[in-house]
Structures are given as structure tokens and as C-alpha cells.
């Protein structure tokens, strides 16, 4: 009824690109308490089930010659394992399950979000900010535990001229604290923007003359979004590895 009223105001065209991101309680009720089962809960649960299906059920046969599903699980394992090893170094491998968790959650949340009528959990800053803050806190704590005060050497560029070092230290410090901001907004922003654009194109489909163009545009955007869904998960993960490398080896 809200959309009808809205549609009437804008003369036929109905644009609700942001409605898909509304958090709703699944079982009625107006208020959302922290424990309320919402569409967020549902789609996160589906993501968990998808992860279990791929990584646990798919590999349950432990075959020497892998089946297709087991190959996919092994591929995901190898992809993230190699990324952690190559980017963050061998001593970062004990964080591999943690990074794998982040990657699997983001990649499945992104792809599940591409299912029509679904809810994209990674399009919410509440989610990505927590993910980014978890990484930020982990990296900072690991950095200080591993290197003690030496971790502050990350901000003291010893290869720069002495006069420049305090200025660089300020810049480095700011960039360090901006990391969780860019880390989280990059992911949520990309996912949200793509979904909103698809919805806008879908709104144009209401006009018969424009609708073929609209459908083509939606198809193209959808293809792009499939790419973005994976790339953003990859970017988030590889940046986590880069930050972890800084924590383990703070020298420039």
C-alpha cells in the first residue's frame, strides 16, 4: 500500500531501489530486538548451510580422486590457503581458518544476495563494519603480541629522511585507522550499489517502450554483479592477508 501511494506521486514509475535492504522480522511484530529472527537471520542461516553443503557434505567421501563437489571444496581451500601463504607468509597460516571463515561467509552472502527476492546481508554496513573491525582488532592485537612495541615501527618509516618521519608517521597512523572504514564501505558499497542499480532498471521496465532496454540493462548489470560478488569477497580477503602481513612483519 505504501508503494501504491508512492507510485501515484511519481506518476506511474515506481522506484524502490532501497526497499530490498530493509530488515524485517520474519514472524510478525514491529520491533526488532537483538534476538529477533529477521530476514538477516534467514539469509545468514542459508549462507551457513551453503558453506556446510560445500565444505562438509561435498567433501564427506574424502575421495582420493575427488568428485565434482569435492573438487569445488578443495579449490576453495586451495585458493584461500595459497592466498594466505603467498600474501601474509607461512607464519600466518594459523589464521587460515579465520580468513577462510571470512571469505566463505562473504562469498556466499554475496552470491546468495544475487538470487532474486533474496536479502543481501553483506550490503549492510552493520555486517561489513563488524567484519572489518574484527580484522582490524585481530591485526592490531596480533601485531602488539608478536612484536611488542616494535609494532609501532610500522608507523615509523625508517627508510625516509629523519625530518620527514614524524609527518609520515601521522599519515601512516591515519591510514592505519582508515583501514577498517575503507575495508567495510568498499564491500557494502559495491554490493549495495549494484543491487540498487538493478532495482532502478527494473523500475523502468514498467514502461512498455523502455522495457526491452531495461531487461538488457538488468542482464548486463547482473553479469557485472556476479563478477563483483566474487571480486569483493576476494578483495576483502586479500586485504585481510595484507594487514595480517603488516602485523606479523611490521618492518617496511
Amino acid at each position, binding site marked *: *500500500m*505504501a508503494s501504491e*501511494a*508512492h507510485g501515484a*506521486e*511519481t506518476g506511474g514509475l515506481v*522506484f524502490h531501489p*532501497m*526497499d530490498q*535492504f*530493509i*530488515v*524485517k*522480522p520474519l514472524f510478525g511484530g*514491529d520491533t*526488532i*530486538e*537483538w*534476538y*529477533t529472527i*529477521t530476514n*538477516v*537471520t534467514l539469509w*545468514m*542461516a542459508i*549462507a*551457513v548451510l551453503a*558453506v*556446510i553443503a560445500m*565444505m*562438509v557434505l561435498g*567433501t564427506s567421501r*574424502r*575421495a*582420493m580422486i*575427488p568428485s565434482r563437489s*569435492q573438487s569445488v*571444496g*578443495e579449490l576453495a*581451500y*586451495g585458493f584461500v590457503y595459497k592466498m594466505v601463504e603467498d600474501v601474509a607468509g607461512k607464519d600466518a597460516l594459523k589464521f*587460515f*581458518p*579465520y580468513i*577462510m*571463515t*571470512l571469505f*566463505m*561467509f562473504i562469498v556466499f552472502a554475496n552470491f546468495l544476495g544475487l538470487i532474486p527476492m533474496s536479502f543481501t*546481508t553483506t*550490503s*549492510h*554496513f*552493520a*555486517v561489513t563494519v*563488524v*567484519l572489518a573491525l*574484527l580484522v582490524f582488532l585481530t591485526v592490531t592485537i596480533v601485531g602488539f603480541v608478536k612484536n611488542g612495541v616494535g609494532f609501532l615501527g610500522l608507523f615509523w618509516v625508517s627508510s625516509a629522511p629523519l625530518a620527514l618521519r614524524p609527518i609520515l608517521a601521522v599519515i601512516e597512523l591515519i591510514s592505519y585507522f582508515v583501514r577498517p572504514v575503507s575495508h567495510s564501505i568498499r564491500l*557494502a558499497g559495491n554490493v*549495495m550499489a549494484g543491487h540498487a542499480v538493478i532495482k532502478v532498471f527494473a523500475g523502468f521496465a514498467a514502461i512498455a517502450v523502455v522495457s526491452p532496454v531495461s531487461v538488457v540493462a538488468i542482464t548486463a548489470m547482473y553479469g557485472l554483479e556476479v563478477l563483483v560478488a566474487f571480486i569483493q569477497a576476494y578483495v576483502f580477503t586479500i586485504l585481510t592477508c595484507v594487514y595480517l602481513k603488516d602485523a606479523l612483519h611490521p618492518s617496511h
Partner: protein
Amino acid sequence: MATETHEAAEHAAEAAQAAHEAAASAPGMPQLDFTNWGNQIFWLLVTLVVIYFVLSRIALPRIAAVLAERQGTITNDIAKAEELKAKAVEAEEAYNKALAEARAEAQRIAAETKAAMQAELDAATAKADADIAVKLTESEKAIGEIRASALDSIKDVANDTAAEIIAALGSEADAKTVDAAVAARIKG
């Protein structure tokens, strides 16, 4: 919800929605509706913990074990294949060696046989030559004898013939004169 009204005001297009208090109150961006952050964060943490435990306790050790096992099998198979290859090379060398030895042996035997046959042949040839030489001398001797006896016979025949001719001519001639004359004629 009331605190979000300024957000809604910025997004004029969605302002109408904010007016509908009955629906889930959505400001311009539902992402900036901080009332549901607690809910999302709670469920996110639950999700992450579940995924983390599933991965770290079940999935990742299992995949690591499968990959390690496969790597081990591949390494073993490669080692086995290399061993078999080395064995094959060894067998081939042994075969070639045996072949070369057999060939050398055959050549040696052939050469020996050839030498023995040559020696026998030489001996036989020498013996034959000697026999031939003996036979030749004997023959020459026999021929000489025959020739001498033939000469004598010729002389006798000539003498007889001469004596007969002389007798036929009606004159007498003593044997000595006829002999001398015939001998002179035969020589001359």
C-alpha cells in the same frame, strides 16, 4: 526511529516511506537505520562462530588430510615409476651387454673355426701339392722311360727297315754299318 527523520529528509524520494510508520520504518538507506544494527551484529557473530567451528573442526582438517594423502600417493607413485624406469634401463643394459657378449663369442667362434679350417685346408693343399709333385716326378720319369724306350724302338725299327731296304735293293750290308748310318740319320 524518530532520530532517523533527518536522514529521511535528505532523501526526498523515499520521504513518503518514512511517513508510513506502520511499515518497517526505513530511512533513506536501510543500512543507516541503527535500530536494527544490534540484531544484524548478533546474527552475524552467531553465523561467523558457526562457520568458524564447522570449518576449523570438520571441513578444513578433512580437506587438508585428503590433499596430503593425495600428495603422498602422487609422490609415492612417481617414486615407484622412477624405480621401475631405472629397473627397465638396467634390464635393457643387461640385455645389450648379453647381446654384445654373445656377438663377440660368435665372432670368436667363427674366427676360430675359420682359422682351423684354413689350417686344415692349408695342410690338405700342401699334402696334395706334395702328392702331385711326387706323381709328377713319377710320371716324368715314366714318360722319360717311355720316350727312351720309344727311341730305342725307333732305332730298332729303322735299323730293321734299313736292312730290309738294303736287302731288297739286292746288296748285303753288315749290321754295324747300318746302325752307324741310321744313328747318324736320326741325329742329323
